[in-house]
């Protein structure tokens, strides 16, 4: 299973675009926001928590269809399915690899982008903490969605339709945590709830993803 993880990471680094693309998307998305709503720092500071969380969520979403697609096309998935590694383990490793290549860079980049949006100082630790605890859930949910749609040609739009409603609770609590921190309110409760959603998703969704993969490989 560690081998699978290493393989995914190596592919992401050497094939290019693994780390960079979603990060670039996150940057462009945040840069576009002031053009849409105007450069008033007051307004930007107010909407920054939501924008940053939305940007991270969309950046995750855009890279989802690559999780299984290539392995499905060249037959790697069939080989792994016949190997002694359980599919649940494969799904968990895929989610982890997706998080390392997408979620982790987003967490690291978020404070810089928060600066662009004039996020108040007190919110930075909470922004990093909520993204660090929340993006694994996004990866796990996304892996489940990718496993559902792997057999479908041009399933990208369908994938978004399936996955976005599932992202709703994570987004609500994550953005709420940061916006409460900007207003000086209690931000710990939403943060704990984000962590709870992540823990639940990580524990249960690899099984659902593996079930979907088994059906698709049949």
């Amino acid at each position, binding site marked *: 299973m560690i081998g699978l993880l290493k393989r995914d990471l190596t592919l992401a680094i050497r094939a290019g675009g693994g780390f960079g693309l979603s990060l670039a998307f996150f940057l462009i998305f945040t840069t576009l926001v002031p053009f849409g709503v105007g450069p008033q720092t007051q307004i930007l500071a107010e909407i920054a928590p939501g924008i940053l969380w939305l940007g991270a969520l969309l950046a995750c979403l855009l890279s989802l269809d690559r999780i299984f697609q290539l392995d499905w096309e060249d037959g790697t998935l069939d080989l792994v399915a016949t190997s002694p590694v359980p599919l649940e383990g494969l799904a968990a490793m895929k989610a982890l690899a997706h998080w390392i290549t997408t979620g982790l860079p987003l967490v690291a980049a978020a404070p810089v982008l928060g600066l662009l949006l004039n996020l108040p100082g007190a919110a930075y630790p909470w922004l990093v903490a909520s993204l660090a605890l929340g993006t694994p859930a996004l990866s796990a949910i996304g892996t489940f969605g990718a496993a559902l749609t792997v057999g*479908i040609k041009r399933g990208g739009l*369908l994938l978004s*339709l399936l996955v976005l409603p599932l992202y709703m609770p994570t987004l609500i609590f994550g953005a*709420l945590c940061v916006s409460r921190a900007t207003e000086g309110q209690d931000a710990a409760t939403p943060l704990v709830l984000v962590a709870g959603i992540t823990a639940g998703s990580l524990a249960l969704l690899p099984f*659902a993803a593996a*079930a*979907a993969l088994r059906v698709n490989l049949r």
Partner: protein
Amino acid sequence: MSSLWEYANPRKFMATSAFLLPWTAGIAALCLVTGLVWGFFFTPDDFRQGSTVKIIYVHVPAAIMAVNAWFMMLVTSIIWVIRRHHVSVLAAKAAAPVGVVFTVIALATGALWGQPMWGTWWEWDPRLTSFLILFLFYLGYMALWEAIENPDSAADLTSVLCLVGSVFAVISRYALLFWNQGLHQGATLSLDAEQNISNVYWYPLVITLAGFGFLFIALVLYRTRTEIRARRLKALIAQERMA
């Protein structure tokens, strides 16, 4: 008394549903006509809400059935996953479009009711928002059915989606309550209360509730029969090609 699982046999299901369909449809029509006519024309206007209170006869039953339709899909999906009964998963597939229409009716009548009462068509209230999310779940479920060609794979994948979606729908519900306290009133109708709302409005409401329930059953039976016939037709065409 025979076992419930006998209806996993499509032939048995077709025979029983053919018998039940006119009855449920008839009861639905009777209840809806009685309840709606009674509710719309023979109940007094509310002293604060005026005649807009009568939207309740469509709004509340549609909303209740929209949630129950998803619950029914959940149960039939679980039965499919465990016991592999085709009729069960076809019933889930048949229920989805009915559920989505009830959801739209609840949202639309809610907007019509909200405009004069709250002064707004839409409010990001937990109840309203969770119905919007329910609507999105229905859309995703139906889109997944459409996208997959192999009927058995489609049945399996949509069932898994229904199970996972149900869990997340519940989480979203509580997340929304945490997120925003809204305008919509809490649960008014409950079975153990002495009197829920004034009897003048209560009796016609119960009748329309029954009407919407039977309407749902009739529509699902009808659509499931159509799905079974479509399956048979596909099998026959495949047989023809083989011969």
